[in-house]
């Protein structure tokens, strides 16, 4: 088996190198990047191995999520997590629940080839869903439910090695992109090949870290707290060296909203609905991933029993001194456009669809989708 592969590899390698050389002509020069390499292609012939309708092999989706999973750090004053909580309760009450979503970008996914010479893109979203936000700052009280997330944009030429382009870190609705080069530089300084997520105290906004010799969450991006925010027990470096961190879990691949489908091995799926039921110390409660307009329209971190959920989504039962709930899980999902086949303008007028466009300019640029005229009137 090994020899068969090694006999084939030169052909594939030469074709890949040639395609890369052609494809890269005229593009920017090489830059340092964190990269993650799978043991087989993320997308297989005939979309084999796909169970969530995105044409990607789910085994390799899981493997990539594991391979790229960030380190996760808590601040020394953290009192609202599985690591430690101010209530002296069992850790299950506050333990972070990790999920992830892998979604291809663009169209023609079924035609992705390791030798095409074109960069293929995916977005890998990690969800860090805390049952509770214990923040007690005046004017910024905590709440039940605390869904946090980051989004990694990765690209690959050969469908095995995936390069980190940028990461979107979400923190208290004041979110930022951080470049792959910034993150690679910090990771290398730290002595690792993985990015970091540092949670701010008790409310768990996600930050990439700043200097390895400091406890800062980020650079100017965290000035909302007048540079008083810190995200590590000691310094970033000392925490890393002492093992004061966790590895984000990568065992719950949720699939995603259409055109993806929900992954029933990680979420409960019924009809068009998808939800997760967990017992975080208050009985088995449900949170939806699909949008709701009823009492489940907010996220209560599995703390609020259905009978106590109010019509506005909050909870009439006080749990850890809070009754209000957070934003809905579904609001954190990656819903960006992709198409396994060709891009279509249906419902996309004025925007793009995969690798083509559905706006008035597409006529001038000559990059209209095939149905831009019939669907949107741009002819």
């Amino acid at each position: 088996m090994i020899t068969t592969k090694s006999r084939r590899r030169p052909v594939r390698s030469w074709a890949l190198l040639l395609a890369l050389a052609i494809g890269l002509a005229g593009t920017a020069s090489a830059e340092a990047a964190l990269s993650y390499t799978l043991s087989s292609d993320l997308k297989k012939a005939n979309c084999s191995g796909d169970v969530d309708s995105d044409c990607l092999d789910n085994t390799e989706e899981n493997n990539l999520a594991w391979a790229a999973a960030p380190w996760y750090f808590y601040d020394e004053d953290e009192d609202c997590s599985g690591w430690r909580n101010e209530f002296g309760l069992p850790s299950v009450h506050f333990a972070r629940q990790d999920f992830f979503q892998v979604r291809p970008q663009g169209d023609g996914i079924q035609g992705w080839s390791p030798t095409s010479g074109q960069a293929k893109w995916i977005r890998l979203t990690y969800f860090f869903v805390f049952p509770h936000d214990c923040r007690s700052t005046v004017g910024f009280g905590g709440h039940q439910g605390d869904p946090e997330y980051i989004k990694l944009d990765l690209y690959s030429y050969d469908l095995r090695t995936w390069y980190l382009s940028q990461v979107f870190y979400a923190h208290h609705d004041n979110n930022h992109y951080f470049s792959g080069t910034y993150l690679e530089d910090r990771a290398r300084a730290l002595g690792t090949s993985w990015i970091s997520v540092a949670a701010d105290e008790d409310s768990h906004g996600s930050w990439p870290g700043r200097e390895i010799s400091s406890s800062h969450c980020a650079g100017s991006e965290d000035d909302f707290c007048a540079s008083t925010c810190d995200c590590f027990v000691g310094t970033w470096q000392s925490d890393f060296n002492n093992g004061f961190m966790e590895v984000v879990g990568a065992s719950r691949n949720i699939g995603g909203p259409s055109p993806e489908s929900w992954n029933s091995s990680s979420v409960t799926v019924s009809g068009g609905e998808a939800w997760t039921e967990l017992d975080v110390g208050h009985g088995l409660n449900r949170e939806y991933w699909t949008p709701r307009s009823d009492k489940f329209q907010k996220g209560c971190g599995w703390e609020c029993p259905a009978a106590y959920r109010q019509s506005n989504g909050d909870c009439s039962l006080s749990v850890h001194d809070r009754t209000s709930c957070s934003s809905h899980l579904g609001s954190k999902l990656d819903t960006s456009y992709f198409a396994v086949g060709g891009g279509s303008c249906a419902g996309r007028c004025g925007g793009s669809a995969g690798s083509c466009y559905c706006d008035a300019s597409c006529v001038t640029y000559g990059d209209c989708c095939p149905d831009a005229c019939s669907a949107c009137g741009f002819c």
Partner: protein
Amino acid sequence: MTTTHSFLFLPFLLVLTAACAGTGTLSPGPLAGAASLAPQTGAAAASARPAPDPAVAESVGRELAMLRGVRGDDQLRTLRWMLAVSDDRRLVNLFDDTRGPGEEGLDRRAATARQRLEDLATRLEAAGHRAPDPAGLEVARSDPNAPPPNWFPPALIEELAARPNDPVAAQALEEARRTAPRGSRPPG
């Protein structure tokens, strides 16, 4: 008789010489010949070996959730790939009881996780599953010469454009528009 034998031996000698010369040109080294035979040997071995007991792969899937429902040979390939990771501490999130936080430190939990993975791989091998050795494969690395992307999805460009006050998004947008301007088709 001796003359006849020598005459018959000459073509054989020529063929042998040509074969050796060819081997040397294509792939020097004593293993070249053996390597070229390996596919036949491997295929023959694969067809000759009894089908592995599916219960073994099922038991591996029960112990390592990520491998649930995965075929035995693919489980073994994935396990070897995981074991090739450069930092054992990465292994702790594979098992519920090593994920932490817990009484034991990260290094100790990592050692436990590695041992379990090795045991699972050994069990699959013993059951007859086969997978290539990922020698030299780096699961994660900092690549100083990563090839830049030669195409950006329009949806990503639109997302970046929607964040005009984010300097990193603005810089990425500029690069994306330069690399994949309107009217250009994806390369390849």
